[in-house]
């Protein structure tokens, strides 16, 4: 009862905070009545050359004052952008003009490919490191040195060796998401309770069955935590990577809209990145809950 009421109260408060932020935004982007009018009158009576120039630049013919267009978007402009982008997310009008859905699909595709490859490497290697103190000691210096390297620092080498920007993006995701998974898998495997391993020993359980039926479930919560951290990092990195290499993806979309000075589209992209990141995290939280056990 108490929990529910706190949840409801929290939700109401969230909505209030949201509308407060919107009103601050609205007030900050409101056309200024004093100076705005005088500038508008200047533009209202332009010289012929000025109006021709404005027309050439795609301005002036509309009733919105020119300075408002390049300034920070108003709420109504934002709403318009959201509506336009979300009503047709999958349009494709050439390399520089694709719908948000297509761009997201590219980014998610790269992230999941890089993430899965990292998982395929991290799980078995982490298992081995976790099981063997020798391998753990041998691998540890490499992990400790490679882990703090910004994944984007790998980009030139990736581009040079792979010679494909899209696959280089996948590689960058691979290299950034492997470390948390590797470290957590090794840690989870190494800290399986000795008692449980002894049970498996006295039952003469085969190594493979022990790995899948005892060690994996015992370490699963820790492994899933690693996967969740990795996915969070991968989603952070993909935006930066796509800004750098260009072509497709949500990061490229954002940078392209910045080049177009379409601030409302940039803000739209930011919001979408946030939402997708949240959904990804929620997905892994759910997986984590599924494998977590009460001890």
């Amino acid at each position, binding site marked *: 009862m108490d929990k529910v009421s706190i949840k409801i109260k929290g939700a109401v408060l969230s909505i209030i905070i949201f509308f407060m932020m919107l009103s601050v935004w609205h007030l900050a982007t409101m056309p200024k009545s004093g100076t705005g009018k005088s500038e508008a009158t200047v533009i209202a009576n332009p010289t012929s050359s000025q109006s021709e120039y404005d027309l050439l630049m795609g301005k002036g013919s509309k009733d919105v004052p020119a300075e408002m267009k390049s300034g920070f978007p108003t709420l109504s402009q934002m709403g318009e952008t959201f509506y336009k982008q979300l009503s047709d997310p999958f349009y494709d009008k050439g390399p520089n003009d694709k719908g948000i859905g297509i761009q997201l699909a590219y980014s998610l595709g790269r992230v999941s490919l890089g993430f899965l490859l990292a998982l395929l490497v991290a799980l078995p290697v982490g298992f081995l490191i976790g099981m063997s103190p020798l391998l753990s000691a041998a691998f540890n210096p490499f992990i400790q040195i490679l882990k703090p390297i910004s994944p984007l620092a790998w980009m030139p080498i990736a581009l040079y060796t792979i010679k494909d920007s899209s696959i280089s993006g996948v590689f960058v995701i691979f290299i950034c998401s492997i470390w948390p998974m590797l470290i957590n898998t090794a840690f989870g495997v190494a800290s399986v309770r000795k008692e449980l391993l002894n049970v498996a020993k006295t039952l*003469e359980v085969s190594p493979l069955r022990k790995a899948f039926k005892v060690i994996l479930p015992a370490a*699963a919560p820790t492994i899933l935590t690693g996967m969740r951290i990795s996915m969070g990092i991968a989603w952070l990195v993909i935006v930066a990577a796509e800004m750098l290499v260009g072509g497709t993806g949500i990061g490229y979309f954002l940078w392209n809209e910045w080049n177009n000075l379409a601030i409302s589209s940039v803000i739209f992209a930011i919001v979408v990145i946030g939402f997708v990141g949240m959904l990804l995290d929620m997905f892994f939280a759910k997986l984590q809950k599924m494998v977590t056990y009460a001890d």
Partner: protein
Amino acid sequence: MQINHEFLKVEGLSKTYVPGSAPVFENVNFDIAQGEFVCIIGHSGCGKTTILNVLAGLEEASSGYAYMLGREIKGPSLERGVVFQGHALMPWMTVLQNINFAVKSKFADWPKAKIEEHSEKYLDLVGLSAAKHKRPAELSGGMKQRVGIARAFAIEPKMLLLDEPFGALDALTRGVIQDELLKICSSTKQTVFMITHDVDEAILLSDKIMLMSNGPNARIAEIVENTLPKNRERATMHHDPMYYPMRNHLVDFLVHRSKLVQQAASSGSPVSNVTDITQRLKPKLVRPGKDHPLSNPSIQIN
């Protein structure tokens, strides 16, 4: 009585954890006959759990051998079921799945239905059929330990090793499970080696009680034959005329003699009041209340 003394045989077992230092225990010799229930009592640090782990095949002794049915124990085996001090159930599995896991390890070629039927039979034996779909975290300490016992019994081992299985339970629960264990063991003629700290538990359950002196340099000082009749019960056993001689003998050992034996052993004095040279190798057999001179050994402090 026709007993097979070669069922389990331990010879000259010793364990040294830190090379160069005194062994935790040394010269441990005993044997267990088929169908016997043997308890081992001793203070913490005398190496009881190590001996049990050696018998389980989980640990290696520094020297000496353990044989079961004439074969040396060199690793864990399904012939020996272990009930661990902590319940050691897989927390992500239900009670039934935990037992299924063990049964499947032993009878790998059984179909699923047969495995489940077998598991449920043993769950029923410890009175936990109703909780079969619960996870260990939802069970009380006593119930968890019962599942551990059912799991050990379910693989139908030739020998059962119990490491202080009731140590963490309250007295009431402990009594109930002791009764259950007694009932199951006497009906299945199970051979059992059990560690305990509880003198009454040992008297109730065992045929033979091995008394260990304090560690380091611990050894089995005496093997006490349980002189109480076989059909003893927890509720009435303290009225038996043999009960107090038995109990006093055990408690006296824990309070006084366990230390004296250790002192005699580590000082290396060849002859003492408690041990003489022959008993360094073979512990004496004591029958409290029956062999009068041995049942009430003079307690000598210094």
